[in-house]
């Protein structure tokens, strides 16, 4: 029991500690592809350190939502981390608290408050960006739902620990059409939800064009650090859900010994590094879509998710 709690805390620490590193590696690789030198992969840590030691300025016109949001944005990915498999293939102590749908809603709560906070200060650019995040969000929502429905249809459960086993037992199941199409649909979702390139430009700081960036526009000092760290962790958690639950539980610890769990950390980081390479290829080969083309992009994701479900329906008749 105590061991399970310990592993659960370790899982949270891994997400807390390595999510800025993932963001740093992603930035560095992207700059290298553009044949620039790029910042150090540890730059996000330095940024966070710097922000935590600066003064915070809060507008007098803002309400409690503005002050409360950074904590919520910071805490929600950590809460989801308690529920999902990051390092182990067996459920840990807190995993009973919710399934994948609960995780999705908890992440959505952070996004909801971030949008409210962006409107709260009455900065003209905040609401513009917030309404755009909501547009992307409500277009992504049906895709999320269909992905989860398909998962529960195929695996008979929405509990991530049961789902991840389904894709590799027997090994031929990895090539189930519904599995591959679900991976495609969720990859597109990660791009949309993480504010990555075909939907949003993460390195753009032009107020009129920004979508995801706008929610931390008014923050400074520790508040900004929490918002940024929360953003890194959200991407990290989404990648963990994608790689460990929806792709395959390869590299995760299946034995309850601490050696196996510690070994799982580098293996999971290696998986995430592989995924970052894929992300780099996508980000470097595509251009950012115009705002109204985002509906088409997420429409394609929706079609892919529904096609995954239809494939499963077609196969049941077999």
């Amino acid at each position: 029991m105590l061991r399970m709690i310990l592993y659960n805390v370790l899982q949270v620490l891994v997400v807390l500690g390595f999510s800025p590193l993932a963001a740093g590696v992603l930035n560095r690789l992207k700059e290298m592809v553009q044949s620039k030198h790029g910042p150090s992969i540890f730059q996000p840590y330095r940024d966070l350190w710097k922000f935590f030691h600066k003064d915070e300025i809060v507008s007098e016109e803002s309400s409690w939502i503005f002050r409360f949001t950074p904590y919520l944005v910071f805490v929600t990915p950590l809460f989801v981390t308690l529920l999902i498999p990051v390092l182990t293939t067996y459920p840990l102590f807190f995993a009973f608290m919710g399934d994948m749908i609960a995780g999705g809603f908890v992440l959505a709560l952070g996004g909801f408050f971030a949008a409210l906070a962006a409107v709260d200060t009455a900065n003209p650019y905040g609401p513009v960006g917030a309404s755009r995040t909501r547009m992307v969000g409500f277009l992504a929502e049906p895709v999320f739902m269909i992905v989860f429905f398909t998962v529960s249809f195929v695996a008979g459960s929405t509990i991530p620990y049961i789902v991840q086993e389904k894709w590799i037992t027997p090994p031929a199941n990895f090539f189930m059409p519904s599995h591959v199409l679900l991976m495609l649909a969720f990859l597109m979702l990660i791009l949309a939800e993480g504010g990555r390139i075909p939907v949003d430009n993460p390195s753009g700081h032009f107020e009129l064009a920004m979508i995801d960036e706008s929610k931390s526009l008014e923050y400074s000092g520790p508040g900004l650090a929490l918002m940024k760290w929360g953003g890194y962790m959200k991407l990290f958690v989404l990648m963990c859900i994608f790689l460990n639950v929806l792709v395959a539980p390869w590299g995760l610890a299946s034995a309850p010994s601490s050696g196996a769990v510690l070994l799982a950390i580098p293996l999971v980081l290696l998986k995430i590094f592989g995924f970052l390479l894929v992300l780099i290829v996508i980000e470097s080969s595509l251009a950012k879509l115009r705002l109204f083309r985002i509906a088409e992009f997420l429409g394609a994701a929706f079609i892919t998710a529904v096609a995954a479900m239809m494939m499963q329906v077609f196969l049941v008749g077999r």
Partner: protein
Amino acid sequence: MTPWLDNLNALATGLFLLTAFGMVAMRQVRGCLNLFILQSVLLAASAVLLGLRYSAGDLYGVAIVGIVSKVILLPWLLRKTAPAEIYTRREVDQVLNIPTALLIALALVILSYFLALPLLNAVAPEFRGPNLPIGIAGLLLGAFTITVRREAVPLLLGLLAMENGAFLAGIALARHLPLLVELAIATDGLIVVFIVGVLTRAIQKQVGTTAVGEMAHLKETPAGGEAPR
């Protein structure tokens, strides 16, 4: 071995379905052509996998003829005959906007399931694969592509996609389909491509565009008025 082949075949058909969707929505003519080539490759892959699964040698022949005619000869022929200008242009005006077209396409796929269901129940279990419903879906989506597109080459590709869909259903139901049939259809397809390519070139020379969707109405130029578009 069998579950691997079954799953891989199902995957090939699943991706086939996705390319059919893509051909409805893709804006660029060149992208549409690439999707069609990919679809033909997936059709050949499905034929090979079914051939391995049920040890039906004829299906390898179907795959080879499909690859040679649709993946190698067809793009080459199209490039030779159709005006080069169409590969660089973006087709912006579709009859429906893209999300609406995709949703209707989705409804067609669901319809195809209900069309295929009685057929699937009527045949022996070994013929019940995803090929038949997806073949029907491919047929319907190809027809839908023809309906919503206004550019000459995507219209042709929609027609050929219908043929691909029919074949995807056919290779599952008739494993010993005579190679002669496939050869005849492949030649037929190539001749269609040749004729449409030449025709497109002629149309482009005559009216300066290949957006044939706008030529549905025959109008005379009113005296002193603007020329009809």
